[in-house]
C-alpha cells in the first residue's frame, strides 16, 4: 500500500523534527496522542476529529493508486521579478523555503491514476511560504491543466494557500486569470476537475481555480474564504460568528459539495471521479 510506503519513508528519513516527540497534543481537544497512531490515522485526532496539516506527500499517498504517481512538477523555479525586500530579500526567503521543503516552490504533483481514473494530481504546499501563489504555482497549475487536457486525464487539485504571493506583486494577481483560463482546456475536453480544499484556502486561490471545480470537497474545519478573519474583523470591528468561513458553514451556504474526513477522502474522490470521468476506467 502506498500509505505504508509513505510512513516507512517518513520514519527512516526521521529528521530531528520528528524523532524526539513521541506524543502529539491535539490543539483542539488537548488529547495526548501517540504519534505513530496519529500517523496511521492520517493525522486526524482520534479523540475529536481535528485535522492536523499534513505534508503534500501524504495527499499523494492517500489519493494516488499504488505505484501510479509520476511527478511532473519541479522544473520551474521562481525568480525575483520585483527585487522585493521586506524583512528579508525575497530570494533569501525562497532559498529558506526551498531548503525546508526540498522543492522549488509551493506545489507538487504529476500524473497518477486515482481509483483507476487517469488523472493529473496537484497538491499545494502550505509549508512553502504559506502556499502562496506566485508565477511558479500559477505556471504549474496551468501546465497541469494543459497536461490533463492533452492526455485525457481528470484534474484533481488539493489546495492550501494564504492567497496570491505579495512578493511578486501584480504578476501573482495575474496567475488567477492564467489558472482560470487553463481550466477551460480541461472543460473543453469534457474532463472533470475536482478540488479538495484544505486548511487554509483563502484569497486569490479561492477567488480563482480552487472554486471553479466541478466537485468541491473540503476537509473538516478548514478555513476557506476570500478575506482572512483578521481583515474582516478590522473591517467590521466586531467578532466573527463561531464557525464562520469553516467548511461546515460553507456546506450550509451551498458553496461546497461535501465536507469529507481525510480518512474517507480517497473513497470519496474515487466515487466522484469514476462517475464524472467520461472514458473507460479499469477496476482499481
Amino acid at each position, binding site marked *: 500500500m502506498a500509505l505504508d510506503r509513505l510512513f516507512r519513508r517518513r520514519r527512516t528519513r526521521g529528521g530531528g523534527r520528528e524523532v524526539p516527540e513521541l506524543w502529539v497534543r491535539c490543539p483542539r481537544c488537548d488529547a495526548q496522542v501517540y504519534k505513530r497512531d496519529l500517523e496511521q490515522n492520517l493525522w486526524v485526532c482520534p479523540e475529536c476529529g481535528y485535522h492536523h496539516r499534513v505534508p503534500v506527500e501524504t495527499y499523494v499517498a492517500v489519493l494516488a493508486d499504488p505505484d501510479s504517481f509520476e511527478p511532473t512538477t519541479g522544473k520551474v523555479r521562481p525568480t525575483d521579478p520585483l527585487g522585493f525586500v521586506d524583512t528579508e530579500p525575497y530570494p533569501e526567503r525562497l532559498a529558506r523555503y526551498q531548503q525546508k521543503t526540498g522543492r522549488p516552490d509551493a506545489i507538487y504533483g504529476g500524473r497518477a491514476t486515482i481509483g483507476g481514473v487517469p488523472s493529473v494530481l496537484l497538491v499545494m504546499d502550505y509549508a512553502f511560504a504559506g502556499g502562496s501563489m506566485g508565477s511558479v504555482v500559477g505556471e504549474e497549475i496551468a501546465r497541469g491543466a494543459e497536461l490533463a487536457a492533452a492526455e485525457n486525464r481528470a484534474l484533481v487539485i488539493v489546495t492550501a494557500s494564504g492567497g496570491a504571493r505579495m512578493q511578486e506583486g*501584480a504578476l501573482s494577481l*495575474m496567475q488567477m486569470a492564467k489558472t482560470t483560463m487553463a481550466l477551460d482546456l480541461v472543460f473543453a475536453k469534457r474532463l472533470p476537475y475536482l478540488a479538495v480544499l484544505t486548511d487554509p484556502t483563502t484569497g486569490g486561490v479561492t477567488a480563482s*481555480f480552487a472554486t471553479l471545480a466541478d466537485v468541491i470537497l473540503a476537509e473538516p474545519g478548514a478555513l476557506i474564504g476570500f478575506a482572512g478573519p483578521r481583515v474582516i474583523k478590522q473591517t467590521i470591528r466586531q467578532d466573527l460568528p463561531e464557525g464562520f468561513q469553516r467548511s461546515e458553514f460553507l456546506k450550509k451556504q451551498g458553496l461546497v459539495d461535501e465536507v469529507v474526513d481525510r480518512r474517507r477522502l480517497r473513497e470519496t474522490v474515487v466515487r466522484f471521479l469514476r462517475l464524472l470521468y467520461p472514458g473507460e476506467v479499469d477496476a482499481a
Partner: protein
Amino acid sequence: MPLEFERPILELEEKIRALETTAREQNLDLSEEIGLLKEKLARLEREIFAGLTPWQRVQLARASGRPTTLDVAQGIFEEYVELKGDRAFADDPAVVGGVARLEGRRVVFVGHQKGKTTKENIARNFGMPHPEGYRKAMRLMELADREGLPFLAFIDTPGAYPGISAEERGQAWIIARSIQRMSRLRVPAVAVILGEGGSGGALAIGVGNRVLIMENAWYSVISPESCAAILWHDAKEAERAAAALKLTARDLLSLGVVDRIVPEPGGGAHRNPEAALAELKRALLESLEELDGLDPEALWQDRYRKFRGIGAFEEG
C-alpha cells in the same frame, strides 16, 4: 483636500490668480510678471510630476475629483443607459454598467463606482463590491455576447468588500466566476484601470484583450496598506510597500501586465478631467480598432496567449 506634494503648485496658482485680480481691479499691466509666473508654474508642475514616488501616485489614484466610471460614461459616450440589479439578490451600487454609444458604435460597459462625497461613498461602499456587483457584471457580459457588442470595463476599487455579508454569499466563488466569464467573452474586451486596481476584486473585470491603465493609477495583488500591515505589521509603512509592490503604470507595462498607458494631463486627471477623458477615449477607440475583425475564437486565443504568458520563472 489637496495632496501634500500639490501644495507648491496650488500656492503658485493662487498667487497668479491674485495678481490677475489686482491687474484687473487696478487696471495695471502685469502681463509680464504673470507670464513669468505661469512659466514657473508649468516648470514646477513638470518637476514635481516627473519625480513622483509610487506612494504619491497611489494618492493621485485616490484623489477626489478623479474621473469615476460614471464620469467616464458621461464624458466619452454620446449616450448611455444604466442597467441595474443582478437578477438574483440586489443591485450593488459599487458596480455600475449598461449599454452606450461610443463614436456611433454600441458597446456594453461595466465599472466600479466610487462616490464623490462621503455620503455617496458610503452608499457606494467606497467602490468595494459585494457578490451581487460581480453578478451584475456577468449579466452585462452575457448581454455583450448575445448582442455581439464590444465590452469595456473600468476598474477603480480598493478591493472586493471583505465583510461577513460578502463572505457568506461566496465572494471568492463569484470573483472566480467573473474572471472565468470575462475570459470567455466572444466579443472584443478592453479593460482600463482608472484609479485603484485592488487585487482580485479588480481583476474580476480585468480580463481584457487589451488592458490599459491611466498614468497615475495603480494595480496590484494587495493594497499598499494591507501589504504593509502583513509584512511590516504596520500600515504606516504603506509608502515602503507601494514602492516594493511595483504597482505604477510604468512598472506594470514593463512587467507585461498592461498593454498601454493612457497619459494624464499635467497635475493629474483630477485637475483636468476633460483632458484625461479625451485621451482615454482616443486610447479606447484605437484598442477597439486593433481588435476589429477578430472572430470569437481568435479573441479567445488572443486573451489566452496574453494571460498564459504572464509570469516570471526559470526553467530547469
